[in-house]
């Protein structure tokens, strides 16, 4: 048995001392330390990046909010713009100032209306006609004079006054020339020559410029002073005619159709209800001697007399147009009462067999500071009114009754289900009793 007593020296001797592994440990420890330092640095950088990212996120959020606010603002702006566009007149006023500045002072001729139709002087033609020799004119001009002369020979009678001549030409145009409907199309589809006398007399179709220049040619050929008027927006034209010492507005275009004489020989006040123009350039029209409405109106007396008139008109078998002149201080109130009465009459007409025979219309025709003209019109189909015999077929009493029976069947209980409305303008029963 070998019992080895281990002494310190022995123990020490038995412990191998390996110098290489120690160094390796130190190196590894240094590497680890460096890695830990790097780790700390990386963590620090990461925290900084996170802060920067948070900052960027905050900035992006702010930008998104800003964009949202901008979009909301845009939506609000569009709403406001829509609201502003409702008040076109303010913009139109500014536009008209621009137009005036751009297009210079007003002239009668060499003006383009509606970007398409040019007002051209025809004085050369009328001067040649009055001189009795138009052989020097162009072929088209000669044909124009020949067509116009044929009309003059047809409608103008010996001894006619200037007013009667004017009215005869107006009546002929109203009966023989119709509106070329393409004028309101954004890119007009009107035919060629619709804006000058040659085309109008050839095709019997016209736009406003055609009506105005043709009417002026006729007046000048009859040696009656006449001008073509246009509005400041260059969108419409009509005429001014001199009769006696006064000028009068005539708009053949606006009267085309069933509204005959409404725009015939108007004063400035009457014309201004539906037109505007350069009053500094064109002569004033303040005379009433040849104003058609003034000449053909009756003085308003009482509501009873007015209603009695309407009964006679709608039961009469002829076309009637009548204007009532109201001059009292409360003419506007009276006009409203006439409107109510006429409205009830219209209901009676449209709800009865009379609607088969004629067409009833009514309304304020014109007004100035001194008086108001209230007009009524009953167009009787059978005497060659707007539609004439061609529009009405033969109808028996039985057939007419069949139509009325259908109305009774469908509308007999109408006022049981729908309450009649009474306004605060007076007792409707009293108004009804007038008629």
């Amino acid at each position, binding site marked *: 048995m070998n019992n080895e007593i281990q002494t310190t020296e022995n123990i020490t001797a038995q412990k191998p001392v390996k110098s290489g*592994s120690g160094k390796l*440990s130190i190196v*590894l*420890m240094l*590497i*680890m330390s460096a*890695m*830990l330092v*790097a*780790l700390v640095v*990386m*963590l620090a*950088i*990461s925290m900084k*990046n*996170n802060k*920067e*990212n948070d900052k*960027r*996120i905050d900035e*992006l959020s702010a*930008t*998104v909010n*800003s*964009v949202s606010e*901008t*979009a909301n603002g*845009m939506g609000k702006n*569009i709403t406001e*713009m*829509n609201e502003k*566009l*409702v*008040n*076109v007149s303010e*913009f*139109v006023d500014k*536009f008209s100032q*621009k137009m005036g500045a751009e297009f210079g002072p007003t002239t009668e001729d060499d003006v383009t209306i*509606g*970007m398409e139709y040019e007002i051209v002087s025809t004085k050369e033609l009328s001067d040649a006609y009055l001189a009795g020799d138009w052989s020097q004119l162009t072929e088209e001009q000669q044909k124009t004079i020949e067509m116009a002369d044929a009309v003059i020979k047809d409608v103008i009678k010996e001894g006619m006054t200037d007013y009667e001549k004017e009215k005869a030409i107006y009546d002929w145009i109203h009966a023989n020339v119709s509106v070329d*409907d*393409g*004028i*309101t*199309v*954004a*890119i007009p589809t009107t035919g060629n020559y619709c804006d000058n006398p040659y085309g109008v007399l050839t095709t019997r179709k016209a736009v*406003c410029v055609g009506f105005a220049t043709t009417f002026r040619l006729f007046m000048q050929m009859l040696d009656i002073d006449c001008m073509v008027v246009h*509005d400041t*927006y260059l*969108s*419409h034209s009509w005429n001014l005619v001199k009769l006696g010492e006064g000028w009068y507005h005539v708009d053949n275009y*606006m009267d085309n159709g069933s509204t005959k004489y409404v725009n015939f020989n108007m004063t400035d006040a009457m014309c201004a209800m*539906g*037109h505007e123009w350069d009053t500094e350039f064109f002569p004033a029209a303040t005379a009433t001697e040849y104003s058609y409405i003034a000449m053909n109106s009756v003085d308003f007396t009482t509501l009873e007399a007015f209603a009695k008139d309407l009964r006679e008109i709608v039961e009469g078998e002829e076309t009637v147009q009548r204007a009532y002149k109201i001059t009292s201080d409360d003419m506007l109130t009276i006009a409203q009462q006439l409107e109510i009465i006429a409205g009830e009459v219209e209901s009676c007409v449209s709800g009865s067999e009379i609607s088969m025979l004629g067409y009833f219309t009514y309304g304020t025709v014109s007004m100035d500071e001194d008086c108001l003209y209230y007009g009524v019109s009953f167009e009787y189909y059978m005497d060659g009114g707007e539609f004439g015999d061609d529009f009405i077929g033969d109808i028996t009493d039985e057939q007419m009754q069949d139509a009325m029976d259908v109305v009774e069947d469908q509308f007999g209980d109408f006022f049981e289900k729908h309450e009649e409305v009474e306004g605060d303008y007076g007792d409707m029963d009293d108004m009804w009793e007038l008629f």
Partner: protein
Amino acid sequence: MNSVFKRILCVMLAGATACTMLASCSDDKSSSDKPESSSVAQTKTVEMSQLKDAMLKADDTVPTMLTASSEDENGEQLFAYLADYDYANVDEYFFCYAAEGTADEIAVIKLKDSASSNDCLKAVKEHVATRSKQYETYDPDQVPRCSKAIVFSNDVYVVLVISDKNDLVKDAFYNAFK
């Protein structure tokens, strides 16, 4: 300390360090610094014919419409009926208008440069004002429709809408670019 244990510990720490380094890295380039653009022109390119069809379809009450456009041989001449504006600045346009002469109009003008859009916008507004005045004389029922016209610009586009469903047609314009 056992040397093997030390080595294992070192490897673990190194691995942990590596993982931490990887985790702490972030791609700072993934976030967009550009704000959202509200310009339709920068969103998507749309053919004018597609835009026209989409806007016309948006209002089923629109009447029979005629169209003038930059594709027409006399497109420049027809453009004058829409706007008193220098055609040299116009890239493309279409102008749809009612065949029967009512106020219905749908038009889009694409400019070559958005810098002149204000002048074009003003010219289109003047067109609306002129039509309104014309209708006062010839067809007063159309005047209120003109007063509700929508006229706006977006980048290189100037748009006019006069219809009974203005907002739907306007929305159709913006939706076409989405």
